[in-house]
């Protein structure tokens, strides 16, 4: 039975300036211990989906229009707020993008971690502190520094604290929203490697949100490419990397400078992300798609299964395609 199943999830931001359709009919599954990479440009709706899962969206502007999020069989959207609070931090944890502002500046680092432990397991304060100390060891931070404050830590160290906090109650699912974007490359590698070790040891499954295909390659089992709030291509790592099908995925891969080929100009995807409040007709990618046909501008392509487990939202793979 899947750990997490997202069915036909749509999230819109309703404001005075107009309704922004950030997430449209997303479907996702995730098994126990598996890691799925959610890839896409900024504004593709990745973070909104993640926040939707944990119901952390601010209700006045954001509205979950339709869909279900089944976590171990229970639909998180129907669950009461108290129930949801028990899940957050315990069963599902989240790591945010900017470590600089993710920690409470006036609370000791150790206390911030102990807080989540004490919250979810009724253990004595001493036990919680002990678990906090070995979490810090796990993420490679000197235990005496538990009494220090966030402003005394560098960016990388802070991200380790955030990770320690997220994994303190060894959640079943970890949602990492671009965990390493704010870090420089050397620290990035350490942090990712440490996350994988912990994932193995604690058996947590993970949703890794990123726009860096390199990270996806070394960490994820399955990949979902998102564009304008929709999943345009979904499949295993091998299927996505070796059988690029959707034109947008193709564009993504082309815009990465490859080591072996000697190319003097990059080939970025022309145009910009569509304005979520005025999404184009038909296939959302058509204004920027090089294979765009008249049909693409009118009919909305469904997800075609070109190989078992490899889905593509592009009319070229429809019945009449090759």
């Amino acid at each position, binding site marked *: 039975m899947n750990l997490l199943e997202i069915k036909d999830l749509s999230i819109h931001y309703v404001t005075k300036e107009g309704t922004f359709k950030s997430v449209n009919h997303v479907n996702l599954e995730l098994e126990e211990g598996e890691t799925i990479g959610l890839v896409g440009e900024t504004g593709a709706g990745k973070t909104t989906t993640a926040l939707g899962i944990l119901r952390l969206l601010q209700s006045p502007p954001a509205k979950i229009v339709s869909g279900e999020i089944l976590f171990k069989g229970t639909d998180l959207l129907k669950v009461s707020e108290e129930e949801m609070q028990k899940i*957050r931090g315990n069963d599902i944890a*989240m790591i*945010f993008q900017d470590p600089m*502002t993710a*920690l409470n500046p006036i609370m000791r680092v150790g206390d911030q971690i102990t807080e*989540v432990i004490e919250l979810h397991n009724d253990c004595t304060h001493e036990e919680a502190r002990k678990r906090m100390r070995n979490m810090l060891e796990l993420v490679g931070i000197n235990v005496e520094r538990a009494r220090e404050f966030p402003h005394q830590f560098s960016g990388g160290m802070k991200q380790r604290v955030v990770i320690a906090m997220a994994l303190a109650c060894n959640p079943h699912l970890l949602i990492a929203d671009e965990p390493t974007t704010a870090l420089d490359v050397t620290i990035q590698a350490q942090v990712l490697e440490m996350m994988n070790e912990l994932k193995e040891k604690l058996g947590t499954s993970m949703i890794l949100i990123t726009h860096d295909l390199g990270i996806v390659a070394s960490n994820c089992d399955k990949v979902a490419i998102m564009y304008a709030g929709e999943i345009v291509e979904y499949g295993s790592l091998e299927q996505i990397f070796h059988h690029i099908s959707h034109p947008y995925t193709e564009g993504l891969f082309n815009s990465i400078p490859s080591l072996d080929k000697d190319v003097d100009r990059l080939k970025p995807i022309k145009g910009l992300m569509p304005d979520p409040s005025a999404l184009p007709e038909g296939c959302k990618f058509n204004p920027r798609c090089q294979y765009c046909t008249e049909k693409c501008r009118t009919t909305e392509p469904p997800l075609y299964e070109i190989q078992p487990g490899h889905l593509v939202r592009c009319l070229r793979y429809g019945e009449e395609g090759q």
Partner: protein
Amino acid sequence: MSRYIIKRLLWMIPVILGVLVIVFTISYFTPGDPAMSMLGTNYTEESYVALREKLGLDKPFLVQLWNYLWGLISRGDLGTSYIGSVPVATEVVHRFPITFKLGIMSVIVTTVIGVPLGILSATKQYSVADYTVTSFALIIAAIPNYVFALLGLLLFAVKLGWLPVSGVDSWKSWVMPVAANSFGFIAVIVRMTRTSMLEVIRSDYIRTARSKGLRERLVIWKHAFPNALIPIVTVIGTQLSFIMAGSIIVETIFSIPGMGTYIMTGINSRDYPIINGTVLLLSLCICGMNLIVDIAYAFIDPRIKAQYESGRKRVKKAKIPGKAVP
């Protein structure tokens, strides 16, 4: 940290001396002459000159200033009031506690009512609660405290008879003065709390706290509020000096024999010893309050504490990791 407090305490002495010198100069150069108001209608040329002689008002300004300061430092003598020929020290001894008690209670009341209301209207921004609280605070701030005091007395003391009209004996007689003295300032606290809370609520660590599964009330009180405390504590600190000034009118209305009425007599009849004596006490109070506020900063925000301890001119934010903090 204690080094910082001692340094601040040492700094208090020049401040208070500075206050005294300034107040002495101001009252000296303000038009109006105590000898004249003492003589009143008995004014005759010789009696006027004799009186100035007796009070030492004829000596040059610097000599008078020096006598006053030397008297204060060596013998702690606050001088005798010209008008009532009553030593200022005896008057102040049993008047200061009354005003201090009124001041502190008003500050507590404004904070206890103001802060939660501010947080309520911040957490439920643009909601019914928010607008009602803000408008209520604004309306109260616009009512002058003596109108509020008199109407309150009329309603609670005379019509309903719950409270005594004046006096300082039972706790009941403190209810109205404290209310009249503090309601004007609640608006300031509410609005400042609301503003700083609004800024804090949208920061990332609040979202992190929510993602840890904390209940909303806990997120607000344990994570958001402490971070919003700095501007709130500052405003509460500055309220004390305004409350002390405001107490002049409240003490007149409720006939509370406190410092307010005493300083009014001093100013009305240009009784320099009274003015200097009362201002000395008030400045001690306000400097003390400022010190408490600055120390509170350190407890609230470790970054400021680090800045105090290092004492260096410009603090670099990120410390070399692992360096032990004193």
